[in-house]
């Protein structure tokens, strides 16, 4: 019962601002201790209990991942684009880091079948390539300034 209430609280207070499953996935994965596999959220643990908070976070994490499994490639590209905008990092740096480090690989919840996770990784790889090609096709923000004197 506590777990359901904690999950509801988590959805209403924290996750409601994260409309994209990818954003929620990365956020919820960051709540997990890599050494123990347990999730921790101070606010939730204070309001409910550490166990309930952990279960609620794990459930929402799994939910976000399942939404990503069901997402089409087009949706995934949009999600990645929105996530990139929210991070406010330079797009080229973001894409280089995501292609090199593949941070999404450590964001998979426990108990997910390896085929589902491989499908998501594979789709994210292609989505990153699509996003990279789109960004390369767009003119850099400073480029027009540099070009204008020549024109």
């Amino acid at each position, binding site marked *: 019962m506590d777990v359901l209430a904690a999950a509801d609280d988590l959805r209403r207070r924290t996750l409601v601002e994260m409309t994209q499953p990818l954003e929620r996935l990365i956020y919820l994965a960051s709540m997990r201790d890599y050494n123990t596999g347990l999730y921790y959220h101070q606010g939730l643990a204070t309001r409910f209990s550490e166990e309930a908070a952990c279960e609620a976070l794990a459930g929402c994490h799994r939910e976000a991942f399942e939404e990503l499994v069901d997402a*089409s490639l087009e949706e995934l590209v949009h999600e990645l684009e929105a996530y990139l905008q929210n991070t406010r990092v330079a797009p080229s740096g973001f894409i280089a880091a995501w292609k090199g480090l593949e941070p999404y690989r450590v964001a998979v919840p426990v108990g997910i079948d390896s085929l589902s996770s491989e499908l998501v990784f594979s789709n994210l790889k292609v989505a990153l390539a699509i996003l990279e090609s789109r960004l390369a096709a767009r003119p850099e923000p400073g480029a027009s300034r540099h070009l204008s004197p020549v024109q």
Partner: protein
Amino acid sequence: MIALLLYLLVGVGLLVFLWLLARRKGAPVEGCGRQFVEARQALRTLQEGLLPDNLIQRIFDRDDFRYVMASSPGDIGELFLQERKRISLMWVRRVRCEIRNLMQFHLDYSRLHAKLSLLTEIRLGLDFAVLLLACRALRILLYLRGPYGARAVVGVMTTAAGRVCAVSEESLAFLNPLALESFRRDSTGDGAAI
């Protein structure tokens, strides 16, 4: 004389055959709990990890391909096809592996515990044969024609796998009766219970 020799040879052959049959060990009834748990695990992997409709639809969905071809350069299209081929081959390999685990379980142990009728056993045997053949055919087709070249075989495979899962569910029902009830409620037609 030749006829006598032939009859003798046939007789010796039959004796050897009988001796081999007599030597064949049946599956031990005691101590086979691990095999049941492994079979249950294989069944769960099939039902929850490999055969859900949404997963299969996602892997073999042509809309993704159309989207990539319409919105990106050719090299990304190639990357997409390579990736989807890899995933679809991985799917076939995993399904085949779990089906073989279930088949081995049925050959060795399930008859000791489940009261399957002869007709069900024949159907099950045919389904296993169809599944293993379909897996092999699908692998070849995926290698040759890519991830979108074998939609019909995927359909045959998932339908047969659903039937095999349903029969295996009966054989393993005693391990998890509550889960069986929920599977029965959620099952639809010939498809796998998800």
